[in-house]
């Protein structure tokens, strides 16, 4: 279907494209190993988060938590805010985003363009400052509605009801699903759906490993695991450093012409690892991974050019995923 009544109706239904040049070559007669990219940057605001934003708002409306004119408050470092801003605009809500200073300028410009208000949390203050800012705002405005993407079941359900079925429809022979781990919504929802439908499916998480500045904890007990996370949905989980993420991001555009954000580079790194394992073992594999957004919002980091070391340094201390 290529005609929709409104932009919100155009959410999802993204293309799945093969990557024949990046897929491992296997000996003649050996079972094929193929990589597939699910182009979530083809959503209305250019990221996978449109699915979750739309489902979370609809669920809150259905539950009577959200009424026209209400204010939505969400802590977000970018894409969820942009998606919510678009949905809020079209459904008649005001959106206030709380975000750290150390995100790219494009994200801030996009949010403002969509009409969101932004409250910055000082990057230098680290997590403790962010906690203080978030607590203060929530206390001052008890009537604001927080959709809380980290614990909102509609976030994962969006993927159970849309991303998962789309993947299975387009690739019935799927053997591996790989996606980034943040709120965990994409992996939990899509992973549960595919586990229900495909015997032996492997669900693989790729988690960004940031520079040390980002892990500004005082002690281990300040850590956080999103309420949505259920480790039993996953079969493996990889930590991918900045250098590998940048390397794969560049490789994707150089070899296959796909221009993506750095979190997708991290996901590709994990996808290639499992694809090459399958090829070495002589096993058939159809590895589908999520392109969570395009590279446009990250150009100002400068990490698409120069040496890998330059790029790594440029991204140090930034939330690149």
């Amino acid at each position, binding site marked *: 279907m290529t005609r929709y009544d409104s932009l919100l109706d155009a959410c999802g239904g993204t293309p799945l494209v093969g990557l024949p040049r990046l897929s491992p070559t296997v000996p003649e007669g050996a079972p094929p190993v193929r990589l597939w990219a699910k182009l979530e940057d083809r959503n209305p605001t250019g990221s996978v988060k449109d699915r979750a934003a739309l489902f979370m708002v609809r669920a809150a409306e259905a539950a009577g938590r959200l009424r026209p004119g209400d204010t939505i408050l969400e*802590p*977000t*470092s970018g894409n969820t805010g942009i998606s919510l801003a678009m949905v809020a605009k079209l459904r008649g809500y005001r959106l206030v985003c709380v*975000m*750290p200073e150390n995100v790219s300028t494009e994200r801030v410009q996009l949010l403002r363009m969509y009409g969101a208000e932004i409250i910055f*949390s000082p990057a230098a203050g*680290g*997590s*403790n400052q*962010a*906690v203080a*800012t*978030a*607590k203060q705002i*929530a*206390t001052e405005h008890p009537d604001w509605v*927080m959709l*809380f993407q*980290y*614990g*909102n*079941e509609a976030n*994962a359900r969006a993927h159970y009801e849309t991303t998962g079925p789309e993947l299975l429809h387009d690739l019935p022979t799927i053997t591996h699903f790989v996606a980034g*781990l*943040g*709120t*965990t919504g994409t992996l*939990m929802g899509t992973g549960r759906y595919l586990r229900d439908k495909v015997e032996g499916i492997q669900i693989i*998480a790729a*988690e*960004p*490993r*940031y520079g040390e500045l*980002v*892990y*500004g*904890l*005082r*002690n*281990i*007990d*300040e*850590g*956080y*695991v*999103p*309420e*949505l*996370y*259920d*480790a039993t949905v*996953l*079969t*493996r*989980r*990889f*930590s*991918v450093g900045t250098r590998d993420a940048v390397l794969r991001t560049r490789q994707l555009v150089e070899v296959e012409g796909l221009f993506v954000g750095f979190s997708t580079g991290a996901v590709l790194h994990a996808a290639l690892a499992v694809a090459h394992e399958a090829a070495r073992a002589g096993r058939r594999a159809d590895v589908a991974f999520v392109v969570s957004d395009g590279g446009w919002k990250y150009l100002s980091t400068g990490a698409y050019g120069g040496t890998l070391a330059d790029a790594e340094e440029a991204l140090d201390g930034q*939330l690149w*995923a």
Partner: protein
Amino acid sequence: MAIEVRIPTILRSYTGGAKVVEGSGDTLNDLLTDLDSRHSGLRGRLVTEAGALHRFVNVYVNDEDVRFLGALDAKLNDGDSVTILPAVAGGAFGFAAAAAMAQHVGAAPAERRARVTAS
């Protein structure tokens, strides 16, 4: 030959400030015991009294999460690289703000968690 272990900032008080230390062991459990003999107290920050990995600690062997490799029983080989990190899914800001909000909104996240578990 030895196993290289990367220590996060918040645990370097146990390693005299060292970012990287070396140890040995056939399993992660053995390695942590070996490390504790030289960096006393480190093991106690990573493993609970019940003998499981701390909820907010992630340990990776060659970039792969050990919870999917047998956790403390995960097999190790000389030359492996082990990375210890605090759990901060969703980025530092995300987890911090979300944790704060979760406390603030009280029961709401717990209710949602219950529904997720049931589904």
